[in-house]
């Protein structure tokens, strides 16, 4: 009898211990075992993962398991970065490639913010505007930018216009939809409180709806700029002679794998740095997010 219970109990204890290990690597508060799953600091683990991946990469290339044509060694990437940094790529200095790509992405992003935030807010507040703009936005939103890239070229040529417009379109939808959803963030009590002080509709929008939509708008901006970087390479397929996306595409045609990987890492690093900046802004601008 005793044996039976012991046999049954052991796997249960093991399973719950395994889950505890999975859900929370170490206690955030002393003695807390039954907290919300998923708490805890992840920085060390993330750094270790990165180090491990780079190590595997290095081992694979150093032992010659994969040809450098397919996967160059980490050192080759760094070397290529130094090379492009000092000598440029296809006759253009590296900083110009970075600058022009950043200008395209941020230009499109700022434009998308300038149009998308007011339009999204208007969609949230007015059924008429929502009725008009909802179908076109929802129609084009899920289409991959590469699919309508040919149309951009046919309509707007191969200049900066179609490049920026392509990025703009991919950034615009998430920002407009985020702003639209943000309108719903204000509690009815906050709105009623303003009205009961004799606020006009405009004052309610400006002083209650807009500030309470800020967290959602900032999140939407973060998501939006991510889409912008995603679309950069597609945009620079359009007869570009400068830019990080162009660099990746041109290098791939000459099988310069090291340059391709280096370009990808540079794009990722810039996008990540900007995401950090946006998170910092979020903490500064809406410290009350999720607290009331």
């Amino acid at each position, binding site marked *: 009898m005793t044996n039976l219970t012991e046999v049954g109990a052991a796997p249960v204890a093991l399973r719950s211990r395994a889950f505890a290990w999975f859900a929370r690597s170490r206690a955030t508060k002393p003695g807390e075992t039954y907290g919300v799953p998923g708490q805890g600091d992840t920085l060390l683990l993330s750094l270790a993962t990165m180090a491990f991946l780079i190590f595997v990469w290095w081992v694979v290339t150093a032992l010659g398991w994969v040809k450098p044509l397919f996967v160059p060694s980490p050192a080759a990437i760094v070397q290529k970065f130094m090379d492009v940094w000092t000598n440029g790529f296809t006759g253009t200095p590296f900083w110009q490639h970075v600058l022009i790509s950043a200008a395209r992405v941020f230009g499109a992003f700022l434009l998308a913010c300038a149009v998308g935030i007011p339009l999204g807010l208007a969609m949230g507040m007015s059924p008429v505007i929502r009725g008009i703009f909802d179908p076109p936005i929802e129609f084009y939103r899920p289409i991959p930018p590469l699919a309508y890239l040919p149309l951009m070229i046919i309509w707007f040529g191969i200049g900066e216009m179609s490049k920026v417009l392509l990025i703009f379109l991919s950034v615009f939808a998430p920002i407009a939809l985020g702003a639209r959803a943000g309108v719903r963030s204000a*509690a009815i*009590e*906050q709105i*009623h*409180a*303003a*009205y*009961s*002080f*004799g*606020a006009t509709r405009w*004052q309610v929008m400006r*002083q*209650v709806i807009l*500030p*309470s939509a*800020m967290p959602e708008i900032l999140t939407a901006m973060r998501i939006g700029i991510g889409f912008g970087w995603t679309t950069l390479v597609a945009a620079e397929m359009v007869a570009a002679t400068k830019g990080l996306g162009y660099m990746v595409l041109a290098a791939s045609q000459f099988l310069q794998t090291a340059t391709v990987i280096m370009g990808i890492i540079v794009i990722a690093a810039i996008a990540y740095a900007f995401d950090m900046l946006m998170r910092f802004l979020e903490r500064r601008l*809406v*410290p*009350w997010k999720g*607290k*009331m």
Partner: protein
Amino acid sequence: MALEIRRASVIYPSQRGRRPVEALSKIDLTLDDNDFVLALGASGCGKSTLLNLIAGFLSPSSGQILLDGANVAGPGADRSVVFQKHALLPWLDVRANVAFGLKLQGKPKAAADAVADKFIDLLGLKGFEGSPVYALSGGMQQRVGIARALTCDPKVLLMDEPLGALDELTREKAQELILGIWQRTGKTVFFITHSVEEALFMGTKLIVMSPRPGRITHRFDLPFSRRFLDGTPARKIKALAEFIALREEVLGIIFADEEQAA
């Protein structure tokens, strides 16, 4: 001079084949100067609808709401509302929240802040002027809400279960604080609560409402808040035989309504 509700009804039109709902049926109620009117009732009895009607967020389907003889056409600063929760603006600090109504009315910042500071002091929030409201406790947040409602010098103060989300101890302290402010400012107050004890202790008049259709079924005049302000301790009042007898009577009325609904 008073707030007068004359045979006011609110009917929500039928939706998706359901029958129209008579949320309030022919309500007659007068709030005189310096009245502290408490509204109690089973859930769905229309207390909140009545408050929204007085505040002007809703218009009556029939009947009239008159403030000093003039028709109430919408929300206005002569009737401030204190909500149960979620009504403060977390992007503003305590002082800016309290001054919010005055700013909306176009008062210059310095003057608005001066008035706000006066009420911050009155509500015992001195020293927290610059604190973010989301960092305050529930009781302090409600005091910010009350201070904000008082700044515009309303004729009527509407309180929609303002203490409903507070723990018992904070709640009793807040009751005494509100009575003190009522005495000092001489406002007319309309106060909704779910707590019979709170209603009996605080009000000068009590209305008990019943659901389906929402209507006033009982009216009482209450002496207890005056006695508290004359110096009798709150706990002593709440333990008086007559207080307990009335409490049981009112509870009986509400329980009967709830049972009918079940």
